[in-house]
């Protein structure tokens, strides 16, 4: 058993200026995690896409039109004040989704979920998916299923797990080698390793030696303007989706483009100009 000196807080930062919208992250995720699919995947409202790529636009006419792509996995929210009461975890009546205080990962226990879908209603990111159908793979394709991830049955909710099975394998490897630390390279999600542009950086937000920590520079102090918000990035180019709600996601986004950053949250008239250069809670002090 590994006794961590400090709990991990796994998270990722996605560079939206590097993302080309190719969808490799989504495909690798589906393949890695045995995500079932329909014959016709055109209706995205009932197809399962743990990693969904949104297309953003600055809504300006040609030739000023700009487009960005935003990959959206589960945000693994820490909840208000980062206490682990994520929007979904706090509402699940059967404790079928749980917050790992040792990893910061929001889990989903498929065999305990009875399909009430309250978690889906509570998630503002639409990161949770219901199995409306029995999972069926084309003949022969079932041989390619990952043995490390259990397929889900009809009638339960599923979502991105930050490839938790990879974390388990990395932990076992560390244990076998007598180490009490999981090297950064040993635990990487499928989307991170598959992204051809290297747009996704994954690691331990609590570990200063990890690249994700160095990019995000998460502020451990609550935001003085909104005490529910913890872990705000001190990098001016980094933001989180719907940060003002206090969900405290562990997925950060990065962009040089102001209009992209502005699309990360809602702002009343005039608010953006006041906050666009405010980053990290320390800047309020």
């Amino acid at each position, binding site marked *: 058993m590994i006794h961590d000196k400090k709990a991990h807080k796994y998270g990722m930062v996605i560079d939206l200026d590097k993302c080309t919208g190719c969808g490799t992250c989504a495909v690798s995720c589906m393949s890695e995690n045995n995500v079932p699919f329909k014959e016709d995947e055109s209706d995205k*409202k009932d197809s399962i896409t743990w990693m969904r790529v949104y297309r953003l636009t600055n809504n300006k006419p040609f030739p000023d039109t700009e487009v960005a792509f935003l990959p959206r996995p589960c945000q693994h929210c820490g909840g208000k004040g980062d206490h682990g009461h994520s929007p979904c975890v*706090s509402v699940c*009546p059967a404790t079928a989704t749980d917050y790992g205080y040792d990893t910061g990962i929001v889990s989903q226990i498929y065999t305990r979920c009875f*399909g*009430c879908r309250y978690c889906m209603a509570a998630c503002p990111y639409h990161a949770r*998916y219901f199995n409306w159908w029995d999972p069926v793979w084309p003949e022969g394709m079932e041989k390619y299923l990952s043995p490390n991830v259990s397929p889900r049955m009809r009638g339960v909710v599923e979502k991105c797990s930050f490839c938790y099975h990879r974390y388990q394998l990395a932990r076992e490897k560390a244990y076998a080698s007598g180490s009490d630390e999981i090297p950064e390279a040993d635990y990487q999600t499928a989307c991170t390793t598959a992204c051809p542009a290297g747009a996704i950086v994954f690691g331990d937000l609590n570990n200063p030696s990890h690249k994700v920590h160095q990019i995000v520079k998460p502020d451990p102090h609550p935001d003085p303007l909104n005490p529910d918000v913890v872990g705000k990035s001190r990098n001016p180019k980094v933001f989180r989706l719907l940060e003002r709600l206090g969900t405290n996601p562990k997925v950060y986004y990065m962009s040089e483009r102001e209009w992209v950053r502005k699309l990360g949250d809602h702002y009343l008239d005039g608010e953006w100009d006041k906050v666009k250069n405010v980053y990290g809670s320390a800047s309020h002090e």
Partner: protein
Amino acid sequence: MDAALIPEGAKRCSFPKFMLGIAIVGAVLLWGVYAMLLCWFKGLNQTNMNDYYGFALWIWADLAVIAVGGGAFFTGLLKYIFKIDELKNIINFAVIIGFICYSSALLILAIDIGQPLRGWFIFWHANVHSMLTEVAFCLSCYFAVLTIEFIPNILENRQLNKVPFFHHLAHNMHGVMAIFAATGAFLSFFHQGSLGGVAGVMYGRPFAFREGLLIWPWSFFLFTWSAAAFGPCFTLLVTRVTEAVTGKKLVKDNVVHLLAKISGWMIFTYMIAKIIDTLYWAKITAPGLGFELSHFYTSNGFYGYWILVLEVIVCGVIPGLLLITKTTRENPTFRLIAIVLAVIGVCINRWVMVLQIMAVPVMPFDTWALYIPSWQEVATTILPVAYGIILIAVAYRYLPVFPQELELNRRPEARES
């Protein structure tokens, strides 16, 4: 044919006529049962729900029947705890309506969950932080209380009552009914409230989210209040419909006026609280999260400000005013308009707190999601209505539901003698 079962002195339609009515409604019921079986055996892909609409028509129906079924607990509270004795003349019917509403709600939940055989997990693996856990526990317990409240009325059936044990059991149960009424009111306070809490705690959904007191969002208290306010209106409405169908006066006007008056004041005070809550949410809560009020009511093909006006003014303030004003309350037409509007109003409130929440986009680059239910959803939503009609018909025919029925419908010669 079934004369021996009909309450003594009561006049009922012929058995074939009764059975014809039951058969017609029964056909609708079977249609609903067929749709229900499809959902159970083929899964929820039979519905038009999707990952944006995890909560849809059924959950609205669930919340709506529980809200209008609130007449049972509130009337029970008034009768047994506040000792408003006139209400004994309508309490049986209020309990039956409540029983129908709550059994329907449990059935809807059983259809709605993706893995019905795991439904018991909500009790076994209960998450004490979840409002839905509170709903499940209080709902189940309250349904048991309603069953206990219904039993004495069943035992008063002419034939059952001849059995000494049943006769005494019914009598003694009436004697201790205040305890169950108090238990029912306590449980109802929490499950009606926790249904409001289901929406109010969703801090990721600014349209639903409400601040509150300790762990309870304001919607918790508003749901309890509205159920107590609008529930009696539904009891009065169903009573009026039953009177129209049977062609008889079943409850004296003074009882109806009293319940309408209490309901009116509850609605009026609830609307004040609701308006304050709406204003606070629109001016403080939502803007604090970056949302203008217009975000929730524009840029889509269905949800406009009209729904807010319809819920709060047309089907809230107006019925409240009509029922607290003596002249309109005692005018049968105005009273009927008021109770119909009130029932529609509480149903709209539940619709908004379930379906509009799902429709409103939260991420800035997301879009409104509208949905149309499948026939299976519609059929299973109508199923409880058909079941309710049948249960009311059977109860009315064979049980002494309305204590004033004989007195109000005595033939002239009988009255003279």
